[in-house]
Structure formats: structure tokens, C-alpha cells
């Protein structure tokens, strides 16, 4: 770790430093190497002072971070290879290391597999639906209209900021079978709506609809920001060349929107793979486990006191998220 004591450390991470700092660096280095003793001493003191100040600023965060983030991450990895149960809270030494048993147990559990299938269903249907609706709304707001843009944006974004619990109260009314708002509206046009939350084949579509309603606003806002980075001149040039609206969208907007699309896809997928709140407040995973998700089942195991098993399941979810994220980066990066 001694390597990074000097001024060598250009800022880590993705962002280039502000140009202001660049000219200063060579000077710094040379004065340290060849300068006279006095200035070296002063620079050393200054650097030490800077380091001390940095640590004073970093310490509160680091302590809280270690206690409430880093430690739990490590501990859950440890728990996942033990048979920790709720009662072991009082007797931490009665815990046995059981290797990968929790993982094999989870993977061979039919309910866990059912939950994995449900989560895949939710992501594969819910994510495209959310993104298409969001993109359509963003394009319409960006290019299609000139007035009331702020009002539409505000309205579409409202579901995002509301508490899931409050949303659930309202949506249960909407989806109620006899007398719910949706089925009443369907009745006006002569359709007998299903028992949305009570029918195993309709419960998941109901939750997908609800999640898309709740989440498309976020994606829409990010798409809007991405669309505004598309230079108008390109569209004008394409229009002069005779490209229609659809062709311009397909061949001008879409390629330039690719980084935004990747970003939205990754964040949406990460969120949807942890699909939890909707079934938790609406269906408790039912009927007949038709809406139980991986996170939901993990939480149930936690509730039963099977802490080791729950930790193993949570790491399985993490692995899936990591793989899906990596795949998306691959797919969308390569073709650019």
C-alpha cells in the first residue's frame, strides 16, 4: 500500500480529473525528487496534514460503513455455509459449518424453483413492458408535443415517489373482483374481468401491470435526458435526406440512445430481479405460490428463522444479478 502515498494517485474510477490539476503534477514530482531539503520537508508536512484531514473526514463514514454494510456482507457469506437459525442469536457458538448444503438445499427446493420461474416471468415480461412504455412516453414528450410537457412528466412520474403500501391499498380496490374499478370499467364494454389477484393465472400479470405503472416514470426520465443529448442537426440532415419519422427514430435516435438504453436496462433488471414489494403487500406470494419471488421466498425463510438458508438464497440472487448485468453489458456494448 505504500505505493499510493505520493501524489501519483490520479483519481481512481471513471471520471477524468478536472484539467486544472494536470499542470501541477510534474512540478510536484520534480520538487520532491530533486528539490532542496527545506521544501521537501515542507511538502512532506503538508502532505501529512492533508492525509490526516482526509482521514478525519473519512472516519465517520468508514465506521458506519464497516458496521452496517461491509460486515453484514461478509457475515451473510459466512452464515450461508452454516446452519444458523434464529435461536442461535443467543448461542452463537452452537452454529455448525455445513459447507454448501444450504445452496444445494435451496436449489433442489421446488418452491425456490417456482420462485425463480416467477421472477424470470416477471423480469422477462415486466422489463420490456416497462421500457417500451417509458420510451414511448419519453419520445412523445421530447419530440411530439411542445406544450404541457411539465404536467405530463409530473403525472407520469407520480407513481414512482409514492409508498408501495399506499399504492397497495388503492390497487386492491382497483383489482377487486366483484366491484373493483377495473372490472366495472370492463363490464361497461361487455367484458367479464377475471378475479385478478385470486386467479393463479392472472395474479402475476396483475402484479406486472402494477409494477410497470409504478416504475416506468424513472426510465422515462432517464430516456428523456438521453434523447436530449441527440443533436437536432442529425435529425434535420436525415429529414433532408428523406428519412421519415420512424426511420429517423430507428437509425438516428436509437444508435445514439444505446448507452442510455443499456443503463436503463441494467438498473431496471437489477431492481426487477429483486422483485419483492408488490407480492409482499398484494398477494403474500399466493394464490398457490403463483406470485412468490426469489426475494419474497428468501424473506419467508428469514421469517421462519432459517438464517443460514436465507443467506444462501440471497447470495444466489446476487449471483444471478451479477450474471444478468454482465450479459447486458456484453450484448449492448459489443455492437456499438
Amino acid at each position, binding site marked *: 500500500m505504500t505505493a499510493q*502515498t*505520493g*501524489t501519483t494517485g490520479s483519481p*481512481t474510477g*471513471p471520471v477524468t480529473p*478536472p484539467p*486544472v490539476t494536470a499542470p501541477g503534477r510534474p512540478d510536484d514530482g520534480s520538487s520532491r525528487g530533486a528539490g532542496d531539503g527545506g521544501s521537501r520537508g515542507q511538502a512532506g508536512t503538508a502532505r501529512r496534514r492533508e492525509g*490526516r*484531514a*482526509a*482521514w478525519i473526514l*473519512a472516519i*465517520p*463514514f*468508514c465506521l*458506519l*460503513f464497516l458496521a*452496517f*454494510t461491509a*460486515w453484514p456482507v461478509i457475515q451473510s457469506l459466512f452464515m450461508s455455509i452454516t446452519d444458523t437459525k434464529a435461536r442461535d442469536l443467543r448461542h452463537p457458538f452452537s452454529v455448525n459449518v455445513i459447507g454448501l448444503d444450504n445452496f444445494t438445499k435451496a436449489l433442489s427446493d421446488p418452491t425456490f424453483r417456482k420462485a425463480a420461474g416467477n421472477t424470470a416471468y416477471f423480469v422477462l415480461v415486466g422489463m420490456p413492458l416497462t421500457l417500451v412504455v417509458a420510451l414511448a412516453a419519453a419520445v412523445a414528450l421530447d*419530440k*411530439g*408535443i411542445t406544450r*404541457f410537457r*411539465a*404536467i405530463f*412528466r409530473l403525472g407520469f412520474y*407520480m407513481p*414512482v*415517489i409514492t*409508498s*408501495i*403500501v399506499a*399504492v*397497495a*391499498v388503492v390497487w*386492491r*380496490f382497483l383489482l377487486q373482483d366483484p*366491484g373493483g*374499478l377495473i372490472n*366495472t370499467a370492463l363490464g361497461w364494454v361487455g367484458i367479464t374481468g377475471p378475479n385478478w389477484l385470486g386467479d393463479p393465472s392472472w395474479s402475476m400479470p396483475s402484479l406486472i401491470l402494477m409494477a410497470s405503472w409504478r416504475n416506468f416514470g*424513472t426510465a422515462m426520465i432517464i430516456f428523456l435526458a438521453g434523447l*436530449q*443529448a441527440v443533436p437536432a442537426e442529425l*435529425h*434535420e440532415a436525415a429529414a433532408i435526406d428523406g428519412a421519415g*419519422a420512424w426511420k*429517423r427514430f430507428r437509425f438516428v435516435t436509437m444508435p445514439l440512445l444505446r*448507452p*442510455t438504453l*443499456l443503463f436503463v436496462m441494467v438498473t431496471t433488471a437489477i431492481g426487477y430481479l*429483486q422483485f*419483492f414489494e408488490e407480492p409482499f403487500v398484494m398477494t403474500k406470494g399466493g394464490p398457490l405460490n403463483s406470485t412468490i419471488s426469489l426475494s419474497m421466498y428468501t424473506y419467508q425463510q*428469514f421469517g421462519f428463522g432459517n*438464517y443460514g438458508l*436465507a*443467506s444462501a438464497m*440471497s447470495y444466489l*440472487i446476487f449471483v444471478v444479478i451479477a450474471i444478468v*448485468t454482465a450479459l447486458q453489458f456484453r450484448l449492448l456494448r459489443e455492437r456499438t
Partner: protein
Amino acid sequence: MSVDTAPRPTGPAPAPKASPTGRTGSGMVGSSQGGRWWLYLVLTVALVAVIAPFVWMVLGSFKGEGELRQVPPTWLPESASLDNYTQLFSKLNFGQYFTNSIVVAVVVTAGNLIFCSMLGYALAMLDFRGKKVIFTAVMGTLMIPGVVTFVPLFVLVANAGLIDTIPGLFLPFLVSPFGVFLMRQFILGLPKDLLDAGRVDGAGELRIFFRIILPLCGPALATLGILTFLGSWNNFLWPLVVAQSEDRYTLPVALALYSTGQNSTNYGLLLAGATVVIIPILVVFLIFQKRFIEGIATTGLK
């Protein structure tokens, strides 16, 4: 390190520019003389569909029990009354839950603003031993889903005797990797000359941060503050397992338990409760909406 590349596409820093708002007539090509009427129609229908549940919720909270059970349901209340709200605050102790929610959200927001900006500044502008380690560790956890830390966090808080206490509700959320990321990115965009100028004037290192840098971080602090407050206000699962006696409930917990408990058949109360949960955040949103949307657009997180 897919971790720190993830949020990149939307730009380096939450700089004040990239706002999807006030844009003036760019990109208006071809067929668009002020927009097309059918698009307004489609968007209006969509808007109505999206916000109808809210409208119905607020209207319903003024209705009596009998009217809420009518088939077909009504839109406007036949006889509007505040009964549901008075009952909520007199019988159901919603005042207490409201206070708990506010206290937790304010403490969590303050903690994030202070601690994340401190570390964000150190990472962006100062050189120190261990910087790389801290940065890697913090960014590495950005992608770890909450479900992974949930169980050990509960065990930790239980062992510390903090179950069913207010500190148990806010302590785990006082800092966030996301906050550090946001603040660091913003501070990287500030000129480093500020530091040298401060040093030449003989200001101490901490003074430079608190008196020179921090006042310039307004936009980033506002974004972080709003997003943190929102997240804390709507946080549901953690308070549900930690708050076990009624005095510690936050609003979402109380509402969730009432909506599944013996009050679940009192529709008017539930709708009024849902309105009470949503309205404060809606007000905050309407006041700061520009900042909000900039924050979402630059970070993609909510």
C-alpha cells in the same frame, strides 16, 4: 469493475446543466408545428389512467363507509366529510407514526448529507493512504442487493439491543455508497484551485472543506437530500421487522398492518391513511421537482 462503469453513460457529474426541463424548441423537425393533436389525446388518456388511482384515493378518503361499498363505485363523494381523518389521528395514533417517520427520515438525510459529502470530498480532492481501498470497497457494495445484507443486519441490530428502538430504525441507513459516489462525482467537477487558494490563505484543511467546498455543493446536496428523504420515508421492510411496538411504527408500517389487520374492512380509514402517507412526499416533490428529476436523470436511482 462493472461497478463504477454502470452509472457512467449519463455523464460525469450531476452538473446543473443536463436538465430535461426548460428546453427551447430544439429537435423540432418536420411534421411538428407545435405538436399533433392526436398525440395530446393519447398522452392525456395515458395521464388520466396513470393518476386515476391517486384521484380516486383522495376522493375516497372523504367518503363514508357505505358509499365506498357501493356497486358500481362512485367518483365524487356524495357527502364529503373529514371523519376518516379525525378518526385516523384521534383513535389510531397516526400523529405518532407521522412523527416517527419524520424523525427517521430527517436523521437519515442529515447523516447522508454530512458523512457522504465528507468522504466524497476526501476521495475527490485529497491524497491519503488507503484511498484506493476505501473507494474500491464503497463502489463494490453499490451493486450488492439489499436482500444480501438484510439477515445479518437484523442479527447485528438485535445483538446490539436496538430492536424496537428509534436508533435501530435509522442507524443502518446513516451512510450510503450511493451518496459517496454522487458527492465525489460532483466535487471532482469543482476546480482544485480552490484548495490551493484556501491553503495559501492559511486555512486549515477541515476549514477549507466546510467553508469553501461544502457551500459550493448545493445542487448535489439537494439531489442527495431529496432522494434520501424519499427513500427513507417510503422504506417499508426494515421498519416492519424492527418496529415491534406501536410507538415505534412508521407510517408505511402502520398502514400495512392496519390494512391487513382487523381494520382491513374499514375502507375509508385505509384510503385516508394512504393519502396521509403520500401527501407529504408529494408536496416535497412538487416543490423540488426540478432537482428531483435532475437527480434521477443523472444517477438513475430513486
